[in-house]
């Protein structure tokens, strides 16, 4: 992004150097680091291989069918849009409430957003039957059914969010690298735009589903608010764990402040999320009739089919446990308790958004047939590959950021 009023030859030299030094330093580390990155790469390659098989042989290698036509990929996509939006829960306290302690760490939330969006794009791509025709959806080259198709809105808001966060994170890191104080006008407006934008990505993603009249399970006005609430659960939960790891492995000063703030946010969002689940469950089951059949299938099984029942009850158990732990005063003192609650709710929401939301939308089908779905080995491999790639990318991004903040990554050496 060219952000300078007069062309300065200095940036032509120092910006490539920033990129180069970032790459060099991000691949430096101890044995544990190399082992970690090698393991992630290996898993990612397993995923790449499974995907190439899927492209060659067709999506018949998945367990999806004409009845359940979206599965694990779109489930992960939906979840990760939430994670990306959840990154903003660091930005809001830092900039809207001017929490100074958050200011330095807000970059973690922005990097998380970048990585999560990249993973979203990968999950959408592996779900395409014809990845070679991806160019058909690029505005200007293909035919972009905007503004009618919600999917085109999603393309716009997701790529916009990616660019915004790349700009903010890139600008802040580069200025630190130069040893300059970042110029507010080049990032504050973008930060505020990114707050609104974060809400938009998960709203549009909810509209993808809730706008379909033929799928009563999704056709609920509560879907977008529910998506946002669960995003504000997973985002802070992931960031808390990341910060705790950073505190152990790097010289970065984190302190209790930001972690306490995020814990306070979670105390509220986890409970609101559960409240919304309750609200949906009541509306479904008290009303009854055939509209409730998807929910019946999900929670109790229908006509002898119980495929999703273990998933949803596990999810509920994890989320309720997490809510109880978060409400305990001890959670602010006991780190392990905090980590346990964060992991529990992260997994809980992952199930709730995927096996608990995308899949039951298709069961029973629109003609009320019950065809069950359980992800195939290929699907699990591809999913593991994308997650490994994402976690690896996040590791490298954090490494660059910590190097910049440590002062190891500077234009002029200390």
């Amino acid at each position, binding site marked *: 992004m060219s952000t300078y009023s007069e062309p300065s030859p200095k940036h032509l030299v120092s910006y490539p150097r920033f990129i180069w030094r970032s790459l*060099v*330093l991000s*691949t*430096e*580390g*101890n044995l544990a680091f*190399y082992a970690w990155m090698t393991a992630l*790469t290996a898993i990612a*390659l*397993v995923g*790449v*291989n499974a995907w*190439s098989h899927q*492209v*060659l*042989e*067709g*999506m*018949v290698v*998945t367990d*999806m*069918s*004409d009845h359940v*036509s*979206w599965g694990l990929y779109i489930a992960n996509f939906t979840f990760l849009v939430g994670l990306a939006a959840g990154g903003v829960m660091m930005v809001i306290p830092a900039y809207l409430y001017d929490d100074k302690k958050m200011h330095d760490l807000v970059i973690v939330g922005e990097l998380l957003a970048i990585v999560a969006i990249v993973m979203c794009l990968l999950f*959408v791509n592996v*779900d*395409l*039957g*014809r990845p070679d*025709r*991806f160019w*058909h*959806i690029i505005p200007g080259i*293909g*035919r*972009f*059914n905007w503004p*009618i*198709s*919600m*999917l085109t809105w999603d*393309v716009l808001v997701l790529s916009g969010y990616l660019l915004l966060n790349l700009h903010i994170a890139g600008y802040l890191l580069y200025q630190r690298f130069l040893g300059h104080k970042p110029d507010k006008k080049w990032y504050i407006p973008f930060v505020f735009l990114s707050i609104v934008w974060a809400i938009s990505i998960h709203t549009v993603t909810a509209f993808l*589903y809730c706008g*379909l*009249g*033929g*799928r009563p399970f999704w056709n609920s006005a509560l879907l977008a608010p529910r998506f946002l609430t669960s995003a504000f659960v997973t985002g802070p939960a992931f960031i808390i764990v990341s910060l705790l790891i950073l505190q152990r*492995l790097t010289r970065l000063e984190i302190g209790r402040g930001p972690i306490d703030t995020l814990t306070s946010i979670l105390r509220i969002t986890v409970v609101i999320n559960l409240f919304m689940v309750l609200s949906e469950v009541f509306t479904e089951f008290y009303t009854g009739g*055939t509209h409730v*059949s998807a929910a019946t299938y999900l929670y109790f099984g229908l006509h002898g089919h119980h495929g999703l029942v273990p998933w949803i009850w596990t999810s509920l158990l994890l989320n309720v446990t997490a809510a109880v732990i978060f409400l305990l005063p001890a959670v602010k003192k006991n780190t392990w308790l905090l980590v346990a609650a964060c992991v529990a709710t992260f997994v809980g929401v992952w199930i709730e958004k995927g096996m608990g939301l995308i899949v039951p*939308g*298709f069961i*029973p089908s*629109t*003609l*009320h*047939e019950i065809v069950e779905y359980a992800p195939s080995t290929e699907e699990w491999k591809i999913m593991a590959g994308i997650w490994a790639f994402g976690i690896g990318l996040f590791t490298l991004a954090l490494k660059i950021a910590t*190097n910049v903040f440590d002062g*190891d990554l500077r234009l002029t050496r200390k």
Partner: protein
Amino acid sequence: MTEQQPESGLSRRTLLKGIGATLGVAAFAKALAPLTEWVDGLSVDAFLQKHYRELTPDELQTVLRRLEQETRDQYGADVHIDDLTPNPGVKFAYALNLSLCIGCRKCAEACHKENNHDRDTHQSYIRVLEMEQGSLDLEKGTAGYNHAVPAPGKYYMPVQCQQCNNPPCVKVCPVEATWKEQDGIVVIDYNWCIGCRYCEAACPYHARRFNWKKPSIPAEDVNPVQAYLSNRIRPQGVMEKCTFCLHRTRAGKLPACLEACPTGARVFGDVADPDSDIRWVLENKRVFVLKEELGTQPSFFYFFDV
């Protein structure tokens, strides 16, 4: 944590990094190996082909001949792929007499053959539901019945694309690969569809199908009378659907499912023609549509004779 790098020269670490990166790239290439076989099967012309509605008449002819050649190469079948456009002033509609339907599924079978469906999965655009008498609730129906028909206490409801006048599938397509034509038929450009399956999620009638694999049909079973927008053999990874057999109906014939029906339960025609059978049914029978409350405005009607 990071060690100070020596300023110049090839350090041991740099060397190891280089080896690691090389191995990584090699492993990546190996992992992607199945893709090369897939890429070999794609032609540049197919990759760069424009949207159906952007093709000039000449370009379209080139595409049709290429597709015929592909069918010869891949299936060993000589076929003729035509491009049939809507006839001006025609608006197709379909009606089904539920009192006559006996649930024999001959329509589904005819569709399977006429439209060059995958033989392995026995695909068809029609699903016949066995319904309980006294109820229009699809929840009480089943498509998986396997006994002599008609069974006592049951009636039968074949469901296929309703060719909605307000089609949810067309609305959601991100790349305009599916649209409604002037004669009311909703079609797909199989060479433009990206296979996201959003339309399949949006359709309230389970009318759309995805090609989870490359369709397999023995050369002698291929129906050689084909059209670009209807029954030509679909590529792997794209959506497909019922087109009211436009390769037949736009040429003045009746849909294959209608011709196969042994009880005469099916009525098809041009509603704009005051003398057509379909017009008579719509004017004289108490017809209804499926899931009317969704506002999809189907061109497919059902009625009971008695």
